[in-house]
């Protein structure tokens, strides 16, 4: 299998009012294409920062990140936006849907950004897959938390990403809804061959992936391959 994400000696330091704060120290790991990986650790361990760097939302202070063969370190913000639009999907703990757009429009945005002509049908198809075909014209405020996350998943898969980053995807949901969301995520991961990188506190969710990277104090403390639990 090929490597889709390569993280080498990555560190992140924030400068603020003359003080510097290092939140990540020399992180190293590779992620195989079509695999599912969890990053776990206590609050403040740097896992969300690491996710942001891997997805090209921010730039590492040291080291390098290669995503789908593209070295992100040298790219400007707009180039990274292009990479995200073509190869990356996102799922957030607080859903991050655009509140002024309907469910359908939210799913269409990445497709429209790519200039795809058939975005409406593709978005409807995805909404149907997550079981929200009949709620396509509802605004986020008119949907429950679980429904919003399902729209978010549909949006994340709309551009058929090579890799999907999920930050606490079930963190704001009850147990039953969480199960549904997890099933959807892993099904789509399997069906579409998308690599899945999860950041979570939830060890049950983490054990459903094939690999768990544990972090503490801004550093990787363990990186183990697991036998995924059945969903």
């Amino acid at each position, binding site marked *: 299998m090929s490597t889709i994400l390569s993280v080498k000696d990555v560190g992140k330091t*924030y400068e*603020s009012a003359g003080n510097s704060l290092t939140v990540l120290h020399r992180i190293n790991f590779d992620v195989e294409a079509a695999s599912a990986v969890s990053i776990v650790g206590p609050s403040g361990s740097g896992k*969300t920062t690491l*996710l*942001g760097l891997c997805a090209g*939302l*921010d730039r590492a202070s040291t080291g390098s990140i290669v995503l*789908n*063969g*593209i070295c992100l370190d040298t790219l400007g*913000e*707009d*180039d990274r*936006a*292009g*990479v*995200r*639009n*073509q*190869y990356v999907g*996102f799922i*957030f703990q607080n859903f*991050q*849907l*655009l*509140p*002024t*757009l309907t469910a359908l*429009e939210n799913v269409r*945005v*990445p497709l*429209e*950004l*790519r*200039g795809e002509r058939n975005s409406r049908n593709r978005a409807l198809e995805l909404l149907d897959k997550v079981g929200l075909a009949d709620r396509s014209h509802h605004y986020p405020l008119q949907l429950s938390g679980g429904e919003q996350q399902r729209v978010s998943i549909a*949006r994340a898969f709309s*551009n058929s990403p090579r890799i999907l980053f999920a*930050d606490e995807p079930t963190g704001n949901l009850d147990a039953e809804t969480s199960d549904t969301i997890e099933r959807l995520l892993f099904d789509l991961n399997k069906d579409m061959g998308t690599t899945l990188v999860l950041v979570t506190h939830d060890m049950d969710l983490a054990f459903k992936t094939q690999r768990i990277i544990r972090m503490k104090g801004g550093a990787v403390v363990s990186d183990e391959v697991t036998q995924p639990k059945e969903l």
Partner: protein
Amino acid sequence: MEVPYTRPKLAAGWIVRMAWRDSRRSRSRLFLFVSSIIIGIAALVAIYALGDNFEKDIDNQAATLVGADLVISSNHSLEEGEQGIIDSVRGLSRAHAEEQSFASMVLFPKSGGTRLVQIRALGGDFPYYGKLETVPEAAGREFRNHRQALVDKTLLLQFGAEVGDSIKVGEVLFEIAGRLNQAPGQSGISTTIAPAVFIPMAYLDATGLNQKGSRINYSYYFHLPGGRDADVLAKGLDSLLEVHRMGYDTIASRKEETGRSFSDLSKFLSLVGFVALLLGCIGVSSAIHIYIKEKLNSIAILRCLGASSKQAFLIFLVQVMGVGFIGSLIGAILGTGVQQLLPLVFKDFVPVAISTDVSWSAILQGIGLGVWISVLFALLPLIGIRNIAPLNTLRLSLDTPSPIRDRLSWLVYGLIALFIFGYAYLQLSGFLQTLAFTAGVAVSFMVLFATASLLIWLVRRFFPASWSYLWRQGLSNLFRPNNQTVILVISIGLGTAFIATLLLVQEMLISRVSLSSSGNQPNMVLFDIQTSQKQRVAELVKEQGLPVIDQVPIVTVQLEAINGITADQARADSTLQVSRRALGGELRATYRDSLIDSEKITAGTWMGEAARGEMPRVSLEEGYANRIHVSVGDTLLFNVQGVRIPTLVGSLREVDWNRVQTNFRLIFPMGVIDNAPQFHVLMTRVPDESVSARMQQAVVTQFPNVSIIDLGLILSVLDEILDKIGFVVRFMGGFSMLTGFVVLVASVMISKYQRIKESVLLRTMGASRKQILVITALEYLFLGLLAAFAGVVLALAGSWALAAFSFEVPFAPNLLAMGLLIIGVTAITVLVGLFNSRGITLRPPLEILRKDI
């Protein structure tokens, strides 16, 4: 292996679609933001449309401005050679008429009222275009054939006279044939200053008012046959007329002159409207700033999904353009409505009837300006979008660069300054004036900005921790995140400064005249007294129990040469350093042996008596000497009623023109022009209006040729003129004040969105409705008080500068009025604040949270 990727394309269609989608829940708020520019655009569209219509009206009514094809005018009776010019033009004309006009007293026998008016003695069928608009209508034509007069409507009203009554002009009693509503070229203001009385030329001699030495203007009107170009004819006569000190007017030249004066007025008003627009733009900028802050998360999501910084920026730029267009369109419609009122406002200032047609060019200009200016001022907060990182979707970014460090911000500041300067330059056309205007605007904004910043700093630094919770909460609202302190202080402060300056300047102008009449200063001037009447007029004044404070002779002289250079030589050689305008001009001079209180020698030596065998040494007022480029030791040749008198400039004087004195630019020593034809001026002081009326009546009855200037009358005329000008300025200033009010309402409503969550939380925690209202009231009380105070201080500083450097009067502002203004503005601010916050307190917290958050 490098995998290809493409940068996001701009895709205009998608950007517009996203702008539309994103605006769904914010349209009313976006509209609120641009509502601030509606008033400014309305003002400008109204003024532009007025200008367009006026230009059209002047074109259509140009002929009635002059009443004839050509007018030749002079301030002396026809001399040899001049009659020939007039006769030659008469020979080319279809018809001709003549007018002699001068200032004189008239008496209304029925009421005994007297007043200084403009007598216009008319011979011939003038006007040839338009008509003398009278009631009854026929009077305008028929009065010329009888011993009848047309009397200005304001005069009839003032003295309670009616058509059929009598009016005494000089020695002759005329029947009032009609009420004069309008004469060619006359405006409301000109009739306020000098109301006209038309009499037939045939009776002028009988009035005894056109004696030698009287200041009479002679006008010769010509109606040319079709095909004869008045301008070509006038240009042919130009140099000849200049030699004879005569002027001319044609329809084209009057049109140009009238258009120019109106254009100056219109440019001034455009600037006033522009200030209103600027004020609104500050409101737009501040509101968009808060709006973008609220959109931070949405922008971060878009960036996360792959939108470029340019795309995100353009989405919101399109929104601003859209609402800017709608706001401007509403402003333009409103302005077109306001324009219907403007002819009423300006009717006293223009000599033509102004139409109220819709001006599409004004509407387009207004909309264009509105869209451009909303975009320009929204750019400051909008360019910040470029720096919103997608990381904000995960957590608040720590790396957002400060706008101060963003180079593009400085470019936008530069563009704004350039735009203000450019717009002002187009209106003012003078570099220094434009610089002064731009600097004035910048200083005002900076002073208010500094005041607001100082307030925020002071409240933070000296926060009264021991005060009760409500006071602390109200005070801390002034500096907490998303506060509206700066924008509210600027908008309310500017509005207040506007009103206060208006009040102070109006008061200053009135007090300048009132001051000059205080104490034992003369307040009545009798002039045009013939030498033969001098003694008897003085006796009459004394008989009335009034003092003769001053009595001086006046001799009309003409300056023929400066250092031997005559007007002809100056005209022939433009390199000569002499004032061509001064040569040939008339001057009123006096002769005396000593200086008076209002004069001080600044150069040379005063000489009261002419020394025998030497060239007489005259004294010039220093400002006049500077204007004609003359200094001590230069020679001046005067023509005194036909006698040439060479003189030497012996001294220069500084003159206090503010004093009611007979001040002169030129004074001869005794023994030079003592026997020249002359008239006299007498000054006295009347204690009250009834004595003044009795005195005027006695003078007019016994000496009809003597004219009287009553300072009381000047004061009332000034008051009336200031009232008319004040109305226009208030009308235009009203746009700024209204904008200030809209910005205030918009800012309060925007801050409501900021405050709503915490107010709801406070209510959830048990705060009563009253407590919330007290907190809100206190916040706006501090804001209103400080802004109004800062505005008044700005106005006081500006008015002081005007008093010290322009009007040169002592600065004594009415502090009570200023205090009341501060209280009034503060009260309005608090009321608007409370009114807009009432929604938070009237409805249940949950309802508001669901609806607004």
